[in-house]
């Protein structure tokens, strides 16, 4: 597992192999995760990905799901940001982590190229310590195979100012650099921040590839849209700089969906998706609904097939950007209303 990783992510799809791997993986989790088996007590012949078992992402906020196969080497727990309440926790394992790292690197290389460049991370190295790994740092580490050097450029993980002297020092010696941060932090400490003149001067001579993820919810509240965001970042960098926004979730670690030039999200050949009606769960074709994501890289816990709370629409026909395979349009989170009742917190 998974033979599909042997080719580039947007090479022609082999859906039969992917389905076969997902069926096998589902059987593995049903046999070794009792809670999963209680949720899906019957599992018969499957001819389409739509028929495979799945878990709602919210379960990972409430249960620690682990598939207890012999020989599984457990790693840290991946912890989501928990911006909408409690955090998801996904138990990582060594075998899956290796596959997931290969997957992330391959997908990002399609958008950033294979060339190795210094990677500046808007986070603190201190956040790497501990039994839980924040999902934002896991995302940053996904860029590591494309990095010649790795620098953490804020003192603290909580939106503290950038160490601009470090940035200027790195940038002066290189034509290209990668910068990773969550969407919110990249805006707060870089896009909307004062940058010292020395750093601005250094940045003007450098092609900066900003990569961010984490969603727009907080910035929407500040009335910062994508165009404003991109313009602010690119205004103080060299020609050829760009901003790449990718979508991913802790419960699908290893899979990232950078927006292509046309804003579409492309599905690697080792990933599949289903869009479902929120009221019947029936699969939808071309209509907006709940996004379900599947990949065969999750061996230690049943997060290989998850129903998200994100709305999406499957793209019809090939994307003009030229990438092959399936693609989808991400439409945002399921709208929420305020909690009603007198059960109080």
């Amino acid at each position, binding site marked *: 597992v998974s033979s599909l990783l042997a080719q580039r992510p947007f090479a022609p799809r082999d859906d039969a192999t992917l389905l076969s791997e997902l069926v096998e993986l589902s059987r593995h989790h049903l046999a070794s995760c009792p809670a999963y088996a209680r*949720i899906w007590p019957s599992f018969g012949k499957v001819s389409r990905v739509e028929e495979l078992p799945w878990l709602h992402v919210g379960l990972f906020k409430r249960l620690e799901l682990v598939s207890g196969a012999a020989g599984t080497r457990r790693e840290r727990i991946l912890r989501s940001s928990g911006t909408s309440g409690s955090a998801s926790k996904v138990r990582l394992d060594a075998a899956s982590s290796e596959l997931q790292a290969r997957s992330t690197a391959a997908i990002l290389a399609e958008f950033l190229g294979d060339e190795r460049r210094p990677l500046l991370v808007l986070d603190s190295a201190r956040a790497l310590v501990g039994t839980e790994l924040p999902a934002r740092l896991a995302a940053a580490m996904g860029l590591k195979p494309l990095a010649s050097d790795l620098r953490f450029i804020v003192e603290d993980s909580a939106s503290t100012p950038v160490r601009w002297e470090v940035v200027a020092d790195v940038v002066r010696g290189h034509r290209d650099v990668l910068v990773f941060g969550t969407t919110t932090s990249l805006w707060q400490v870089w896009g909307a921040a004062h940058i010292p003149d020395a750093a601005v001067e250094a940045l003007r001579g450098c092609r900066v590839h900003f990569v961010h993820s984490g969603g727009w919810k907080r910035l929407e509240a500040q009335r910062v849209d994508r165009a404003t965001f991109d313009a602010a970042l690119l205004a103080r960098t060299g020609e050829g700089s760009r901003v790449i926004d990718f979508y991913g979730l802790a419960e699908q670690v290893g899979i990232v969906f950078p927006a292509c030039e046309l804003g579409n999200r492309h599905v690697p050949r080792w990933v599949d998706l289903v869009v479902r009606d929120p009221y019947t769960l029936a699969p939808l074709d071309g209509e907006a609904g709940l996004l379900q994501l599947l990949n065969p890289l999750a061996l230690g816990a049943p997060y290989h097939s998850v129903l998200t709370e994100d709305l999406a629409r499957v793209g019809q026909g090939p994307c003009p950007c030229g990438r092959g395979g399936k693609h989808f349009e991400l439409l945002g989170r399921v709208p929420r209303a*305020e909690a009603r*009742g007198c059960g109080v917190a």
Partner: protein
Amino acid sequence: LPDVFHYHARGDGKSVALALPFSLDEIVVGWGAVRDRALRAVPPEFTRAEWAYLALFLDPAALRAVPERAFGAGQACPGEIAGVARPRGQVAVWLPSNVSLLGPLTLVLLSLTGNPLTFKAASEGADLTSAFRAFAISALPASPLRAYLEREVSVVAMPREDTRVAALARSAMVRVVFGSDAAAAAVHALPHPVESVGISFVDRHSEAWIHPARVDDALLLTLARVFSVYGQAGCTAPRRVVLLDASPDEAGRLRDRLAELWPSVAPRPPMHIATQNVMARQWAAAEGWDAVLSRDHAAVLAVGGLDHPPLDAPWFLGVCAASSAAALRQLPAHTQTVGLAWQGDAAAKALEILTRSRARRVVPIERMHHFLEIWDGSSFWRAAFEELEVGS
């Protein structure tokens, strides 16, 4: 100043004079007028279920009964006056952080005490108390109730740490707090007048107990209606249904029929509730419940035992078959209400529940949400008065 006296028979041939700043009858008539307007349209801030309940609550006969239950039957001609009940003064109400009907309901009940009222609402989110006050003022002609609402009732949205919160506690003669145990303790720990009264309504558990012989579609529809106002987020909504002295198969049949009837009571929910219920069904299954989704994912209905873990999922309702003894034994100590559908002597059964458990209320299922002057084991309405002795 209170200058209108309403007399109530104490039961010993003597009377209590309830001193109010207005004629209670004019206030009740005013609420009746608000109710008439309420029946025409639902304001956008409220759900249909909330508005229907509120309109029901404004029934003038029910409101007139409040002081009678607290102080005795009303009297046109009093006997010897042995006591006077006088409004304590400023009442401060800390509302729950959820969007809740408790504010409007408390406003209506406390308006009958004549005390000035200040409601502390959450700083973010919809505020049904302000919306209801504004609706009532707009619905009323110049009248004592309108004047009272305009001059004596205020709603202030502010965060917990706002300095005005401490000022409110300092000025209030009655503090009514809806919130968690910790929130209530924090409010009562604020400096306050030594002679003031503090009343807490903290989060509680409620259940519906059903005798198998009482199960029919009418009862199940009532159960669905009671639950579907706020789901588990209502502290008087059943968090589980106990089918007493029945078999698991009977509990399963009750659950299945409830699922069939659910769409006739609960409309299609917002999308985030539908998807949360998809999650809750899987969570319940993982915890060993036999759980199904009702149509449109409006609720999760599950069969299990009393030992199955409760789920903190607003639209999850578990059905358990259990013996009466086990149901009593496993009734949580923080139980607020048991909604009872009993075959036989319901009063005796209620007495058994109240004396052998920590439950505060036993009422028919259809009355589980009825919020009245006695709540959580205390007469908070009566506590809004000072009771003065008149010697002879």
